[in-house]
Protein backbone atom coordinates (compact mmCIF):
# COMPACT_ATOMS: atom_id res chain seq x y z
CA UNK A 1 0.00 0.00 0.00
CA UNK A 2 2.92 2.36 -0.57
CA UNK A 3 2.58 5.10 -3.18
CA UNK A 4 -0.94 5.92 -2.01
CA UNK A 5 -1.46 9.46 -0.82
CA UNK A 6 -2.48 9.60 2.84
CA UNK A 7 -5.92 11.09 2.12
CA UNK A 8 -6.75 8.70 -0.71
CA UNK A 9 -10.42 7.84 -1.04
CA UNK A 10 -9.77 4.15 -1.44
CA UNK A 11 -12.66 2.62 0.42
CA UNK A 12 -15.08 3.37 3.22
CA UNK A 13 -14.66 1.31 6.37
CA UNK A 14 -17.56 0.50 8.64
CA UNK A 15 -17.46 0.41 12.41
CA UNK A 16 -20.59 -1.65 12.96
CA UNK A 17 -20.49 -1.14 16.71
CA UNK A 18 -20.79 2.62 16.20
CA UNK A 19 -23.62 2.35 13.66
CA UNK A 20 -27.09 3.04 15.07
CA UNK A 21 -28.96 2.08 11.87
CA UNK A 22 -30.18 5.68 11.62
CA UNK A 23 -30.31 5.43 7.82
CA UNK A 24 -28.85 8.92 7.27
CA UNK A 25 -26.12 7.58 4.96
CA UNK A 26 -28.63 5.50 3.01
CA UNK A 27 -30.91 8.48 2.52
CA UNK A 28 -28.21 10.94 1.55
CA UNK A 29 -26.33 8.64 -0.84
CA UNK A 30 -26.79 10.08 -4.36
CA UNK A 31 -26.07 6.69 -5.91
CA UNK A 32 -28.35 4.61 -3.71
CA UNK A 33 -25.43 2.24 -3.15
CA UNK A 34 -25.89 1.68 0.61
CA UNK A 35 -28.47 -0.75 1.97
CA UNK A 36 -29.20 -1.21 5.66
CA UNK A 37 -31.41 -3.76 7.37
CA UNK A 38 -32.10 -3.52 11.08
CA UNK A 39 -34.60 -4.45 13.75
CA UNK A 40 -35.48 -3.14 17.18
CA UNK A 41 -34.77 -5.00 20.39
CA UNK A 42 -35.93 -4.25 23.90
CA UNK A 43 -33.09 -3.88 26.35
CA UNK A 44 -33.78 -3.98 30.08
CA UNK A 45 -31.27 -2.15 32.19
CA UNK A 46 -31.03 -2.46 35.96
CA UNK A 47 -32.66 0.53 37.59
CA UNK A 48 -34.54 1.56 34.45
CA UNK A 49 -38.30 1.79 34.82
CA UNK A 50 -39.07 0.22 31.46
CA UNK A 51 -37.06 -1.54 28.74
CA UNK A 52 -35.36 0.59 26.13
CA UNK A 53 -35.82 0.00 22.40
CA UNK A 54 -32.47 -0.33 20.63
CA UNK A 55 -31.91 -0.66 16.90
CA UNK A 56 -29.79 -3.65 15.97
CA UNK A 57 -27.95 -3.70 12.68
CA UNK A 58 -28.66 -6.84 10.65
CA UNK A 59 -26.93 -6.00 7.42
CA UNK A 60 -25.00 -3.09 5.97
CA UNK A 61 -24.02 -3.27 2.31
CA UNK A 62 -22.08 -0.91 0.10
CA UNK A 63 -22.12 -1.63 -3.62
CA UNK A 64 -18.74 -0.38 -4.87
CA UNK A 65 -19.97 -0.88 -8.42
CA UNK A 66 -22.39 2.00 -7.87
CA UNK A 67 -20.43 4.11 -5.37
CA UNK A 68 -18.88 7.25 -6.85
CA UNK A 69 -16.70 7.87 -3.80
CA UNK A 70 -18.26 11.25 -3.02
CA UNK A 71 -17.97 10.72 0.72
CA UNK A 72 -21.34 12.21 1.61
CA UNK A 73 -22.10 9.14 3.77
CA UNK A 74 -18.86 9.66 5.70
CA UNK A 75 -19.77 13.30 6.26
CA UNK A 76 -23.36 12.77 7.34
CA UNK A 77 -22.71 9.89 9.74
CA UNK A 78 -23.25 11.40 13.20
CA UNK A 79 -21.40 8.56 14.91
CA UNK A 80 -18.27 8.27 12.74
CA UNK A 81 -19.24 4.72 11.84
CA UNK A 82 -18.01 5.36 8.30
CA UNK A 83 -14.41 6.40 7.65
CA UNK A 84 -12.25 6.77 4.59
CA UNK A 85 -9.35 4.34 4.28
CA UNK A 86 -6.75 4.21 1.53
CA UNK A 87 -7.26 0.51 0.73
CA UNK A 88 -8.10 0.33 -2.95
CA UNK A 89 -7.19 -3.18 -4.11
CA UNK A 90 -10.57 -4.87 -3.92
CA UNK A 91 -11.44 -5.38 -7.56
CA UNK A 92 -13.82 -8.25 -8.29
CA UNK A 93 -14.45 -10.45 -11.29
CA UNK A 94 -18.21 -10.17 -10.96
CA UNK A 95 -20.55 -7.37 -9.94
CA UNK A 96 -21.69 -9.27 -6.87
CA UNK A 97 -18.12 -9.30 -5.59
CA UNK A 98 -18.30 -5.52 -5.29
CA UNK A 99 -21.20 -5.67 -2.85
CA UNK A 100 -19.52 -5.74 0.55
CA UNK A 101 -21.38 -6.57 3.72
CA UNK A 102 -20.54 -5.83 7.35
CA UNK A 103 -17.64 -8.28 7.60
CA UNK A 104 -15.74 -7.02 4.58
CA UNK A 105 -16.46 -3.36 5.33
CA UNK A 106 -15.15 -3.82 8.86
CA UNK A 107 -11.98 -5.46 7.54
CA UNK A 108 -11.11 -2.14 5.86
CA UNK A 109 -10.85 -0.46 9.23
CA UNK A 110 -9.60 1.00 11.40
CA UNK A 111 -8.99 4.10 9.35
CA UNK A 112 -5.37 4.88 8.43
CA UNK A 113 -6.27 8.50 7.87
CA UNK A 114 -6.30 11.75 9.80
Amino acid at each position, binding site marked *: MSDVVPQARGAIALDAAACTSC*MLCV*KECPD*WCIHIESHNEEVSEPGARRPRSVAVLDSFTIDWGLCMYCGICVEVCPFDALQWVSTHDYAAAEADGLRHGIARLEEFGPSDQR
Partner: protein
Amino acid sequence: MSAPPGELWEPWAAAVARHVADGYDRLDLLTAVDRPQSEQIEVVIHLVRRPADGGLDEVWGHTLLDRAAPVLDSVTDALPSAAWHEREIHEMFGVEVRGHPDLRPLLLHGIDGPPPLRKDTPLVARIETPWPGAEETGRRRVSVPGVPAEWLEQR
Protein backbone atom coordinates in the same frame (compact mmCIF):
# COMPACT_ATOMS: atom_id res chain seq x y z
CA MET B 1 -25.62 26.80 -9.09
CA SER B 2 -22.61 29.00 -9.63
CA ALA B 3 -21.30 29.43 -13.12
CA PRO B 4 -17.63 28.96 -14.02
CA PRO B 5 -15.67 32.17 -14.50
CA GLY B 6 -15.50 33.85 -17.89
CA GLU B 7 -17.45 36.03 -20.26
CA LEU B 8 -20.25 35.61 -22.75
CA TRP B 9 -18.69 35.20 -26.17
CA GLU B 10 -20.83 36.64 -28.96
CA PRO B 11 -20.79 35.70 -31.72
CA TRP B 12 -19.61 32.34 -30.43
CA ALA B 13 -17.62 30.78 -33.27
CA ALA B 14 -15.84 34.03 -34.12
CA ALA B 15 -14.90 34.60 -30.49
CA VAL B 16 -13.52 31.07 -30.16
CA ALA B 17 -11.56 31.48 -33.41
CA ARG B 18 -10.14 34.79 -32.16
CA HIS B 19 -8.87 33.17 -28.96
CA VAL B 20 -7.38 30.23 -30.88
CA ALA B 21 -5.57 32.71 -33.14
CA ASP B 22 -4.37 34.40 -29.98
CA GLY B 23 -2.60 31.19 -28.96
CA TYR B 24 -5.33 29.55 -26.88
CA ASP B 25 -5.30 26.51 -29.11
CA ARG B 26 -5.53 23.73 -26.50
CA LEU B 27 -9.08 22.64 -25.90
CA ASP B 28 -9.49 21.52 -22.32
CA LEU B 29 -13.27 21.47 -21.98
CA LEU B 30 -16.31 22.06 -24.15
CA THR B 31 -19.63 21.11 -22.67
CA ALA B 32 -23.13 22.35 -21.96
CA VAL B 33 -25.30 23.03 -18.92
CA ASP B 34 -29.07 22.79 -19.06
CA ARG B 35 -30.65 25.80 -17.33
CA PRO B 36 -34.39 25.19 -17.43
CA GLN B 37 -35.18 28.07 -15.02
CA SER B 38 -33.93 30.62 -17.54
CA GLU B 39 -35.01 28.48 -20.51
CA GLN B 40 -31.45 28.43 -21.79
CA ILE B 41 -28.72 25.98 -22.56
CA GLU B 42 -25.33 27.31 -21.62
CA VAL B 43 -22.29 26.19 -23.56
CA VAL B 44 -18.94 26.43 -21.78
CA ILE B 45 -15.44 26.29 -23.24
CA HIS B 46 -12.10 26.28 -21.46
CA LEU B 47 -9.04 27.00 -23.58
CA VAL B 48 -5.42 26.87 -22.52
CA ARG B 49 -2.28 28.52 -23.82
CA ARG B 50 1.31 27.50 -22.99
CA PRO B 51 3.53 30.56 -23.18
CA ALA B 52 7.13 29.97 -24.33
CA ASP B 53 8.46 31.11 -20.96
CA GLY B 54 6.50 28.40 -19.16
CA GLY B 55 3.36 28.64 -17.14
CA LEU B 56 -0.21 28.26 -18.22
CA ASP B 57 -2.74 30.83 -19.45
CA GLU B 58 -6.37 29.87 -19.44
CA VAL B 59 -9.60 31.45 -20.61
CA TRP B 60 -13.26 30.53 -20.11
CA GLY B 61 -16.01 31.39 -22.56
CA HIS B 62 -19.76 30.92 -22.49
CA THR B 63 -22.70 31.26 -24.79
CA LEU B 64 -26.42 30.96 -24.12
CA LEU B 65 -28.81 29.15 -26.44
CA ASP B 66 -32.58 29.15 -26.61
CA ARG B 67 -33.60 25.96 -24.84
CA ALA B 68 -36.68 25.47 -27.02
CA ALA B 69 -34.66 25.41 -30.25
CA PRO B 70 -30.96 25.47 -29.41
CA VAL B 71 -28.57 26.10 -32.28
CA LEU B 72 -24.81 26.32 -31.79
CA ASP B 73 -22.28 27.35 -34.41
CA SER B 74 -19.55 24.74 -34.72
CA VAL B 75 -16.01 25.82 -33.82
CA THR B 76 -14.38 22.88 -35.61
CA ASP B 77 -12.87 25.16 -38.28
CA ALA B 78 -10.69 26.76 -35.63
CA LEU B 79 -10.49 23.78 -33.26
CA PRO B 80 -10.83 20.38 -35.00
CA SER B 81 -10.65 18.64 -31.62
CA ALA B 82 -13.97 20.24 -30.68
CA ALA B 83 -15.82 17.93 -33.08
CA TRP B 84 -16.21 15.10 -30.61
CA HIS B 85 -17.42 17.42 -27.83
CA GLU B 86 -19.93 19.11 -30.11
CA ARG B 87 -21.26 15.70 -31.12
CA GLU B 88 -21.74 14.95 -27.46
CA ILE B 89 -23.54 18.26 -26.84
CA HIS B 90 -25.75 17.52 -29.83
CA GLU B 91 -26.63 14.08 -28.55
CA MET B 92 -26.90 14.73 -24.83
CA PHE B 93 -28.59 18.15 -24.86
CA GLY B 94 -30.45 18.12 -28.17
CA VAL B 95 -28.48 21.05 -29.57
CA GLU B 96 -28.25 21.50 -33.33
CA VAL B 97 -24.62 22.20 -34.21
CA ARG B 98 -24.49 24.31 -37.36
CA GLY B 99 -21.56 23.58 -39.66
CA HIS B 100 -20.42 20.41 -37.87
CA PRO B 101 -18.75 17.87 -40.18
CA ASP B 102 -20.20 14.71 -38.62
CA LEU B 103 -23.07 14.54 -36.15
CA ARG B 104 -23.52 10.77 -36.13
CA PRO B 105 -24.63 9.31 -32.78
CA LEU B 106 -21.73 9.04 -30.39
CA LEU B 107 -22.95 6.90 -27.51
CA LEU B 108 -26.70 6.49 -27.93
CA HIS B 109 -26.91 4.13 -30.89
CA GLY B 110 -30.46 2.97 -31.37
CA ILE B 111 -31.76 4.78 -28.29
CA ASP B 112 -34.62 7.16 -28.89
CA GLY B 113 -36.10 9.60 -26.45
CA PRO B 114 -35.47 13.03 -25.02
CA PRO B 115 -31.85 14.20 -24.66
CA PRO B 116 -30.48 12.44 -21.58
CA LEU B 117 -28.71 15.40 -20.00
CA ARG B 118 -31.69 17.75 -20.07
CA LYS B 119 -32.72 18.12 -16.46
CA ASP B 120 -36.34 17.23 -17.17
CA THR B 121 -35.45 13.92 -18.82
CA PRO B 122 -36.49 11.22 -16.37
CA LEU B 123 -33.82 8.73 -15.37
CA VAL B 124 -35.54 5.40 -15.88
CA ALA B 125 -33.34 3.67 -13.32
CA ARG B 126 -34.35 6.22 -10.68
CA ILE B 127 -38.01 5.48 -11.34
CA GLU B 128 -37.77 1.70 -11.47
CA THR B 129 -35.27 1.08 -8.66
CA PRO B 130 -36.71 1.02 -5.15
CA TRP B 131 -35.05 3.72 -3.07
CA PRO B 132 -33.05 2.06 -0.27
CA GLY B 133 -33.82 4.97 2.05
CA ALA B 134 -37.56 4.31 2.05
CA GLU B 135 -38.91 3.24 5.40
CA GLU B 136 -42.04 1.24 5.84
CA THR B 137 -43.02 2.94 9.06
CA GLY B 138 -44.85 6.23 9.17
CA ARG B 139 -47.12 7.97 6.71
CA ARG B 140 -44.79 10.92 6.25
CA ARG B 141 -43.73 11.33 2.64
CA VAL B 142 -39.98 11.34 2.35
CA SER B 143 -38.30 13.30 -0.40
CA VAL B 144 -35.62 11.45 -2.30
CA PRO B 145 -32.45 13.53 -2.73
CA GLY B 146 -31.81 14.43 -6.36
CA VAL B 147 -35.06 12.96 -7.67
CA PRO B 148 -37.98 15.24 -8.57
CA ALA B 149 -41.20 14.10 -6.87
CA GLU B 150 -43.07 13.89 -10.16
CA TRP B 151 -40.71 11.18 -11.41
CA LEU B 152 -41.61 8.98 -8.49
CA GLU B 153 -45.31 9.47 -9.12
CA GLN B 154 -44.81 7.62 -12.39
CA ARG B 155 -44.08 4.40 -10.51
